[in-house]
């Protein structure tokens, strides 16, 4: 069989989601963001919601999320994405509304907005990228930084006596009456990526069915911030992050 014979529409096994454009991504090679962006784009298209979606991007590494997915976006102030999304969804109830936030945005400066939007049962989905570090500003301590983990602002390792403990926002969210579906996923292997995609799909479907709010945490790597190569970062995540941030469904 020749190359030309193989490259036929009926033999297609994979293609880039149509909602993803060709703008070069600013993410570091090995970063988890690109994979999660792709999953979001695939799920929106598979649900046929291309013409009915409003995304809310955060302050943090995903600040430019709006550059890569061809949907309407609002860029929220640091931590305020769930408040912005609340208004979008309440005012346009037939739209698919989601936020895309990092750990600093969601679990630190935006803790109040996150908890209250989830507790009100807003019919939105919050996608929460937890890489235990502030990536965009150069690797400072995050609310989710593990005890003992070294960052630019805890260079000798996170010490609970000095810095307090890492915050498990997803466990908190699972206790709230307003949440329909709360899950923790990862995207470090093909199997994990597939599970994560199914979780995003379920969350988006819940939002459209009016079942309440949905939180999909994605335990992620930040190889630049962690100062490791991508392969090592994935290994480190499995070894250390999963011990503290258990992967799986917490509710719904």
């Amino acid at each position, binding site marked *: 069989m020749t190359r030309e014979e193989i490259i036929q529409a009926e033999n297609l096994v994979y293609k880039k989601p149509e909602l993803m454009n060709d703008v070069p991504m600013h993410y570091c090679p090995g970063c988890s963001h690109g994979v999660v962006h792709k999953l979001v784009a695939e799920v929106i298209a598979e649900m046929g919601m*291309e*013409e*009915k*979606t*409003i995304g*809310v991007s955060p302050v943090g590494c995903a*600040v*430019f999320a*709006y550059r890569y997915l*061809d*949907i*309407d*976006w*609002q*860029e*929220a*102030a640091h931590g*305020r994405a769930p*408040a*912005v*999304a*609340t*208004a*979008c969804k*309440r*005012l*346009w109830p037939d*739209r*698919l509304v989601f936020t895309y936030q990092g750990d600093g945005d969601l679990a630190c400066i935006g803790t*109040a*907005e996150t908890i*209250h939007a989830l507790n009100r049962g807003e019919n939105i989905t919050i996608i929460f990228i937890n890489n235990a570090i502030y990536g965009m500003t150069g690797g400072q301590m995050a609310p989710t930084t593990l005890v003992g983990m070294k960052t630019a602002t805890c260079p000798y390792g996170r010490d609970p006596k000095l810095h307090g403990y890492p915050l498990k926002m997803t466990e908190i969210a699972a206790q709230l009456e307003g949440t329909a579906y709360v899950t923790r996923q990862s995207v470090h292997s093909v199997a994990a990526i597939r599970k994560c995609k199914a979780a995003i799909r379920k969350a988006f479907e819940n939002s459209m069915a009016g079942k309440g709010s949905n939180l999909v945490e994605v335990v992620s790597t930040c190889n630049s911030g962690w100062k490791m190569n991508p392969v090592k970062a994935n290994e480190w995540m499995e070894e250390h992050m999963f011990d503290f941030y258990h992967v799986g469904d917490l509710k719904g």
Partner: protein
Amino acid sequence: MEEREVLLMKGNEAIAHAAIRCGCDGYFGYPITPQSEVLETLAAEKPWETTGMVVLQAESETASINMIYGGGGCGKRVMTSSSSPGVALMQEGLAYMAGAEVPGLIVNVQRGGPGLGTIQPSQSDYNQATRGGGNGDYHLIVLAPNSVQEMADFVDLAFELSFKYRNPAMILSDGVIGQMMEKVVLPPFKPRRTEEEIMKECPWAATGSGLKSRQPNVITSLELQSEVMEQRNLHLQRKYKEIQEKEVRYEMQHCDDADYVIVAFGSASRISQKAMDMMRARGEKVGLFRPITLWPFPEKEIRELAGRVKGILVVEINAGMMVYDVRAAAQYSVPIEQFGRLGGIVPDPDEIIEAMEKLKK
């Protein structure tokens, strides 16, 4: 309620009724004295059952203003209200709205400060309202009502201006206007815009629909390239200049033959009006100039006025804020003094007359 019926109500209640009547899509707010009647009235009126207007008590003023950002960003007519300490919390969101050119209405029923201050009336947020208040070079369109009637009338006006210029607008009221009861004729009913009308009025909005026939809309104030950011700022400045040229509003009483004028806005202008009437009854030629838009400020009109009077008394319930704008507008051509009370004390007409007598000397 019948159309054009004369009613008696508080300024805060008038704001709520006017919002329902002028096609407002959503109100998001947090309780704070002396403006809580806005949310209370809306909650009692249940407009979500009649016009479909969304009413939500947010978890904070920070959340409220970001809900306004989100709602305005997707093309809806949305508003919030608060009082001074709450409006201080909203400054971040206001700067984002100005930067991303998101329309929306913010009502500030001012109370005395600084800090937690007092729950009594004040006009000491003048600088914050007219200078921007948050980070960056920007302006809000600021309307200052001085009656319950104007509280009602300015809701629709503020929305119109806000959407016309894609700029947040503020009604800068105070505890006097918010709490006092007066006669009011509510504005006629205007239906909420349909989806089609929103798309037509706001082609820039992140509504999520129509993407097959247009580029995605992104509401953002971020730009890392300084050259592009400077252009964006210059665009904003051109817009502000246009607003300054076209949208100045003011009221003059007895200014034609006046030797001296009082310049006052909001509740201070009502008290000043009384003081003027008392002085006029004694044969003194005193006039009153009332800026209705505090930004854009009626500079040209005050300059002209200053050219034909012997002196100006600026009355404001603060330690002297608008007086700097009046002096700059008048280019220091005549003596200009300020009188105000602080900490929630409202001046009385006799004090204003006394201040005018001092100015005349």
